[in-house]
């Protein structure tokens, strides 16, 4: 390989590494800035309530429906597998643990990233494209406090509630399939679930996970929107990056959190 090709490759790798690390640094600084501006934003609670409406309330339908279906599939598949070992009665604990610990926070986080995260990025990106952000700065209105922080907190508050709702709908879906259709005993289903799932640490760890995912998704969404190039193409790229980045962040965070939370418990 000629020397200048090697130099070219090294230069490209170096530039890509440098720029991604610089971006990470900007993201960290941005996170600190959002937190710094949060008290001012939360003082005008109406702004945050509006964002909870857009990212939380409008996500209700997709969370409820998909939770129900995931639960019903879990009920069918779980019963089929467990019954091979004569453990069909353990369906309740199987479904409950999978939903509360993993599927509830993770799947609702992924749905939240694609449903609400992409919308936040597109909205902020378009504000930037149409120079609304610059206009705010001209009027001495801090866009971080007026635009970014409320959207961030709206997402952080909505996410745990949506995850809990997802888990409940999933358990309900599994109940419909397991108890109503297949015929697992009603008392066994709920009794097994309650004896096997503790509020502490199972349910609380699920809630902590969903809070962490809420912070990650909301931060990525507002950051990508704020950092997007002010063009039509830039907004579309930023929206894609939000969905991809947030989904990967959720899955990676989930692994890390699971290692910390359940290593000792199992």
């Amino acid at each position, binding site marked *: 390989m000629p020397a200048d090709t090697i130099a070219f490759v090294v230069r490209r790798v170096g530039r890509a590494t440098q720029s991604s690390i610089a971006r990470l640094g900007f993201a960290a600084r941005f996170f600190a800035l959002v937190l710094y501006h949060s008290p001012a934003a939360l003082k005008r609670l109406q702004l945050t*309530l509006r964002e*909870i409406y857009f990212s939380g309330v409008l996500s209700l339908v997709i969370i409820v429906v998909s939770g129900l279906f995931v639960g019903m599939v879990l009920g069918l598949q779980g019963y089929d597998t467990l019954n091979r070992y004569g453990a069909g009665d353990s369906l309740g604990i199987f479904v409950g643990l999978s939903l509360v610990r993993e599927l509830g926070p993770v799947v609702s986080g992924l749905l939240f990233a694609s449903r609400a995260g992409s919308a936040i990025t597109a909205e902020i990106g378009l504000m930037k494209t149409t120079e609304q952000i610059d206009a705010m700065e001209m009027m001495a209105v801090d866009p971080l406090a007026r635009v970014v922080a409320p959207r961030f907190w709206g997402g952080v508050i909505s996410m745990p509630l949506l995850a809990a709702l997802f*888990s409940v709908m999933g358990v309900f879906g599994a109940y419909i399939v397991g108890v109503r259709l297949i015929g697992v005993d009603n008392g066994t289903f709920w009794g097994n679930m309650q004896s096997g799932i*503790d*509020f502490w640490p199972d*349910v609380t760890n699920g809630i902590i996970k969903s809070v962490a995912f809420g912070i990650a998704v909301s931060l990525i969404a507002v950051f990508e929107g704020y950092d997007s190039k002010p063009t039509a193409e830039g907004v579309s790229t930023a929206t894609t990056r939000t969905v991809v980045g947030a989904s990967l962040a959720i899955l990676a965070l989930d692994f890390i959190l699971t290692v910390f939370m359940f290593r000792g418990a199992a």
Partner: protein
Amino acid sequence: MNRATIDLWVGIFVTIGIGAIVFLALKVGNLTSLQTAPTYHLEAAFDNIGGLKLRAPVKAAGVVVGRVDVVRFDPKTYQAIVGMRINDGVQFSKDTIASILTSGLLGEVYIGLDSGGDTVMLADGGHIAKTQSAVVLEKLIGQFLFDKASTGGGK
């Protein structure tokens, strides 16, 4: 969108979400594990604890009366020291036997307490003297094979 309408919807949303968490706490999980009912501490030394884990139940007559909270190794006696928290109000006599049992062939490992006839009760921090170790299936099978081989060799 009207401000009052948004408030209403957000209120409904938050109510549903908190309701879901309460449902998870009460109906799916059991809040009882969160209760910090007063307990006292007992200890027992076992030669082998098998698959006993932290937070395993301590049962008397099949009823859960406490949980295992410490498992450590005693380097002097080469025994496992198991500490357990027993609910207040449940008293055991001094000659109680603690045994490590398994519910079913593949079930959870727990500690069974069988109270004796002594009138003196174990106090907080008390030590259960009589213990019965876990049955290790591999040892049992090994013993069985050894017995078979030794009797078979005599013929």
